[in-house]
């Protein structure tokens, strides 16, 4: 039908239209006719690369193997406000207290937007006991035991491998398209237009080799090429940095990226550098990188969002809010900014405002179980009781397995709010049954059991909760209270200490501790 159109022209057009499979097919045909057709090779290579391209400027989750072999020692006891592991709490910062705003599993305040890395802890620094971090990570990684949300990929390359194999299967029969280990990379480095696509191919696609080997190939190619380009090409340095980063050589990566940034001021480089700083748990360095770049590129949303995320992670609520507002002024439909602002308003006791933000999200087409559940909660706290239940009904209808426990937990909160304790108990039971590691639900269930004068069951709930997660200070406080009531002062003291370790300014815990001290002294 389009007989006289050149197949290469058609392939290029398909590539532009992101019809990769058709493009690959055309190129494969062309390569069968002429195996040394450079143009067809080039196009096919690019199509395969683009198919499995991922934006790697956002910080990704670290695999267990990375943690295991991580030798970058960071301060275990950093000053508050200088490390993501120790956000500022209480009166010292403008952040909200954990009583009002729950924490994530990593001990950071809950944010309104789930990104890779926000939900899972950064073991090694985040946890209170340094030695247990790896064990905790391993525990979570075991399939079937942990909840799906907390499990951690075994290695980061594991994800890459999956992406890689999928595209290789599409690449056709007869093995992989390019066998990078057999290529003379020095020869390719001298051909600038082939070298770049080859480099990206190895970086993003060719994961049938071992990950490290693969990155070494990138390093080799980029090393030759950057020498070829007279050490003045930012792109090759960036690729070197990327490969070093994947190999875990963060300082080398930083050196390359900084050098690249001297060649040409690119936004990608700023993001990459900030990512390295974040990985090294130096949020202040990352912040200054972002703010410097924001000075050079006024009005760039990515830079503002990067700063806002870091500020939020550090507990600087006001700063984060201001940044999110700036983002919204530039891009009124930024989902992340809207969601974070909504969450903040909700937790600062302004459910009406949060309701407006969530409604906006809904109107924009972000229709998910989480949005509906948040809307339901906002409606409830804003006093619009008639909408609450229809919102939760929709949330339940939309929810998948991962979201259901949290939705039932929230319905349980509403049930407590209207005073129907037996209903609340049923909701929490559902939450705990769906996710045996739902520490908050177990905590509330325990409190309800206490109310029903079933201290044994309550204690076992608290114990189960503590076993499931170590970030909920309420569990420890309640357990301490229960132990104190039953006269087990020893247990009470140890639990109240745990609670205070998680949240040093918790007034009730402090009072209980004082009381316990007085009682022990009297003995």
């Amino acid at each position, binding site marked *: 039908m389009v007989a*006289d*159109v*050149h197949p290469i*022209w*058609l392939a*290029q*057009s398909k590539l532009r*239209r*992101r019809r990769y499979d058709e493009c690959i097919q055309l190129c494969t045909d062309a390569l069968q006719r002429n195996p040394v057709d*450079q*143009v067809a090779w*080039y*196009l096919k290579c*690019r199509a395969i690369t*683009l198919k499995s391209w991922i*934006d790697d400027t956002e910080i990704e989750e670290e695999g267990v193997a990375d943690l295991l*072999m991580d030798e970058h020692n960071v301060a275990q006891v950093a000053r508050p406000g200088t490390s993501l592991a120790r956000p500022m709490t209480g009166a010292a910062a403008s952040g909200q207290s954990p009583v009002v705003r729950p924490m994530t599993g990593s001990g950071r305040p809950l944010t309104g937007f789930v990104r890779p890395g926000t939900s899972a802890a950064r073991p090694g620094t985040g946890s209170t006991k340094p030695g247990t971090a790896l064990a905790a990570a391993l525990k979570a990684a075991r399939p079937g035991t942990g909840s799906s949300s907390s499990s951690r990929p075994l290695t980061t390359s594991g994800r890459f491998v999956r992406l890689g194999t999928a595209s290789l299967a599409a690449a056709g029969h007869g093995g992989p398209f390019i066998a990078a280990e057999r290529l003379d990379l020095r020869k390719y480095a001298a051909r*600038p*237009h082939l*070298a*770049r*696509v080859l480099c990206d191919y190895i970086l993003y696609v060719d994961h049938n080799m071992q990950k490290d080997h693969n990155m070494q190939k990138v390093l080799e190619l980029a090393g030759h090429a950057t020498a070829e380009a007279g050490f003045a090409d*930012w*792109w090759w340095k960036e690729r070197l940095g990327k490969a070093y980063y994947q190999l875990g050589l963060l300082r080398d990566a930083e050196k390359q990226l900084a050098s690249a940034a001297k060649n*040409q*001021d*690119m936004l*990608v480089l700023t*993001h990459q550098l900030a990512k390295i700083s974040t990985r090294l748990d130096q949020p202040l360095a990352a912040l200054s990188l972002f703010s410097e770049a924001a000075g050079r*590129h*006024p*009005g*760039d949303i*990515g830079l503002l969002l990067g700063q806002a995320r870091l500020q939020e992670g550090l507990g600087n609520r006001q700063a984060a809010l201001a940044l999110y507002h700036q983002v919204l*002024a*530039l891009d*009124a*439909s930024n989902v992340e900014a809207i969601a974070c602002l909504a969450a903040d308003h909700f937790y600062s006791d302004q459910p009406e405002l949060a309701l407006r933000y969530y*409604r*906006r999200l*809904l*109107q924009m*087409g*972000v229709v998910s179980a989480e949005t509906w559940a948040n809307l339901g909660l906002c409606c409830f706290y804003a006093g619009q009781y*008639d*909408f609450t*239940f*229809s*919102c939760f009904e*929709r949330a339940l209808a939309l929810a998948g397995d991962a979201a259901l426990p949290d939705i039932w937990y929230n319905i349980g909160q509403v049930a407590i709010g209207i005073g129907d304790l*037996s209903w609340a*108990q*049923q909701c929490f*039971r*559902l939450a*705990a*049954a769906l996710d045996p590691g739902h520490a908050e639900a177990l905590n509330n269930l325990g409190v309800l*059991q206490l109310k029903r004068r079933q201290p044994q*069951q309550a204690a076992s709930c608290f114990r*189960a909760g503590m076993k499931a997660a170590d970030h909920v200070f309420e569990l420890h406080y309640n357990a301490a209270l229960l132990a104190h009531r039953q006269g087990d002062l020893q247990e009470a003291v140890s639990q109240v200490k745990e609670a205070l370790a998680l949240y040093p300014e918790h007034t009730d815990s402090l009072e209980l501790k004082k009381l316990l001290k007085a009682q022990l002294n009297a003995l």
Partner: protein
Amino acid sequence: MSLFSSREWWSTRLGTAEEFDQGSIAIANIDNDPNGNAKIITGSLQGMLRVHLPHQRGYHVEDMLLETELEGSILQLAAGNFLGSSSICLAVLHPRKLAVYALQAVGSSYLQHSKIYEHYLEHTAANMATGPFGGIAGVEHIVVQSYDGQLTFFEQEAMAFSRFLPSFLLPGPLAYAAASDSFITSTAGLELVAYKYSNLAAASGSKEQQQQQQQAGGPPAGAVSGKRIQADWTVVLGEAALDIRTGRITANTRADAPADILVLAEHTFFVLNLQGQLLLQRRLDYHPACCWPFPAGPDSSSSSSSATANPNQQQQQRPPENLLVATHTKALMVYRGQELAWAARLEMLPVAVRVAALEGMQGMIVALDDTGKLSVLYLGSEPPKQSVSFAESKQLDYAAMEAERKALLTQIKAAGGAGWDPAATAPAAAAGKGAAAAAKDLVLRAQVPSRLDDADRIVREGGEGPPGSNADGVAGFGAAGGAAAAGVKQLTVTLLLSNTTKSSMKDVSISIQVPAPVVALQQQLLLPELPPSSSSSSSRGPGEPLAVQVVLQVPAGSSIPAANTAEVVACYRSADKQLQCSQLALQLPMILFCQVIPPVKSAEYKVTVATNRDAAQLVALFGDMLVQAHPAHAEALSRSQAANVMSFHFGGGQEVTILVSKNAGRYRLQADSFAAMWLVLQELSRRLAGHFAAAEAKPAAAQQQQQPPPFSITFEESLPLQDVFELVDRHFALRAALAAANEALEQREVQFRSVQKRLLVRYKDRNAAPLNQLDVLMEETYDQILDLATQMEQLQAELLAAGQALGAGVQLLLLLTRFRFKLAAEESELLRCALSPVVLEGPEVSWEETTEAAMTHLLRSALARSAKDAAAAVPPLAPAADTARLKKHISLVLERLSKGMRLVAGSSSNNGGSAAAVAAH
């Protein structure tokens, strides 16, 4: 994700199965209509050229002005002043031809096209650019880029010259920037390159010449056209450019500043000035499809927006432009500088967008997708309503809701959901209820033959047996060595399933759990559907049940079983999609475990039980066993009808002998293994009970013996506690050994990891320190880990065997306790719950701890002597250090039983209410 969606004003579908691309659309007043109405010109890869002029909302036939087929595909269209006169005409790029057409209106309803000139191209064309090259006024020239990097310049009817671009692989998008008189293109090396027109014009023409010059290292002296083509500037973008345009995007530049270069790349949008400096970059969080700069503000004239081909003419007066980007996420973004001015949802995925004034309306968006849907859109400002329906009009019926809630609450209460024990989760309660209901629906029965299968019917494992179903689960080590098929005993049990409901059941899965040495060849059976058994005619009782054969095997040389019942559970989905189950316990025949041999004398352990009847004949009692014994043995035994001795041989070599004292009705069991006796004793008691029950049921017998006391077995000796404790100690010692091995393994593992880490550091270091025997250490540790792992495996196997022996011992103890204290069935069942013969291995707590806890509980509750006992605190379940307490408590429990205290309230004067507590344990 955007609040608004674009509104369609006019749309049509161009042809069928035609393809379009980036360059397939042009908007211009192509027929030079004095009204100045812009027309939409489209050309497909199939070679169809169409011109549309939308008149009003919605498509009408008269909107199409021209539809004609040109020979050859249309790669790109461009409208411009290619003739020198002031009229606009159309340049059409075919793969091997460039043609310029003039279009004239015939009447008001259609157009006519006439070819003005055409050029045949030497090389396959990729794309073209137009503009007043060289700064000439009043006319536009065309440059065509070919697939081998040749730029061919056409000045109206004449071909001016052609040049090869240096280091070329693949043509990128080509744009002409009038202000600097240069061509901007992107190369295969992901760079953006600009060439000055003057430089191109002055350079040498042919490829060969250039190559020669490059090899020679410089232009040969004296050659007039010998200059090499040199790029004005080069910028590495690192991404392939999708589209290159010129326009003034940056807001803060002066009004007379020249246009910027806009590059839409795969993941970023770049703005460069004409000197190749990056002014602005914006990382895109979506995949862009195409872009179009258009003048913002109302002061732009209609011609400036439509005359796309010559941007320089109106440039001086133009305000900053907005940029329209269509994305692959079906959204339309409008950027004003850095700011996202508007985002709208889009119904299509365009390959080209334009902004034009149509029918006097400014700023209409024309979008074309690659299947040929041509739409004219505007940005509606009304937010969509459908998703905001959460303020729904549906009135909630609170009364109905309350009623439903009440009904649900009663259901929950009925299911025992009132209290909550974290150990028993909600689904368990529901399952329990379901099982109770299901017992009526699915009736399970089993026919257990008393004879083993014939030797030739034995299914060899891994042979014709169903694959994957062999002993990989329960049997564990016991099934190892399936090759020794000679000693394998096999029994085929027939399960009968009858569905008593009216509708058929779905997904019936039957699972069989057998005690340790026995192996079920199929542990799981799946039946997709079970039709109702009762036929419609005979509604009473189940009609024909479905028969399922289950093959059980006992490998040769296996150990003593700890139980002789198999458990069958059938789960199914009833008609209303509820998951339900029903279960059945099967008594496995004795023959599966042991066989009769000539009497032996081994009397290490002895147990004597007495009955209140005359002795029964062993041969009659164990007739079924005798039938299947070795012929010689059977003959010897059956010859002496009144044999008062019989021996049984277990697979593992243990032998148990029954001696009958004829006068007293006493039976003595002798064995070389303590654990082995339980099975024989249990069988004996069961068979005796059955025998006498049958005998006394006969009316004749009933007349002779007038109402004898019920048959009972008694045991007068002291309980063999010491033997049981030995088994407990052995089990416990093995557990301790296993725990120690586990700990050692953990330590070695930590050591291995840290050595590995240290080695890794060494290897990573550029000037590595000497290994310092680290490698030796690593190898040693590795060997140790392997050794420990093997050791653990062995220990685990031993532990399993010890657990089994313990279970058997406990069974015997339970039996004897029952005989000794004449416990009622209910009581002995309670004691069985507390002193369980089922030995479950746990990582921390195991049989010892749970039994200890159960014993303590019994002592506190049912067997408490005083209130002080009852008030004793219960320590939490924790790993035990030794077994002294356990032994003490077991003896204590048995002692109190011997003193007449009873577990069940009715049978003794002891405090009541404890039975439930025990059962719950």
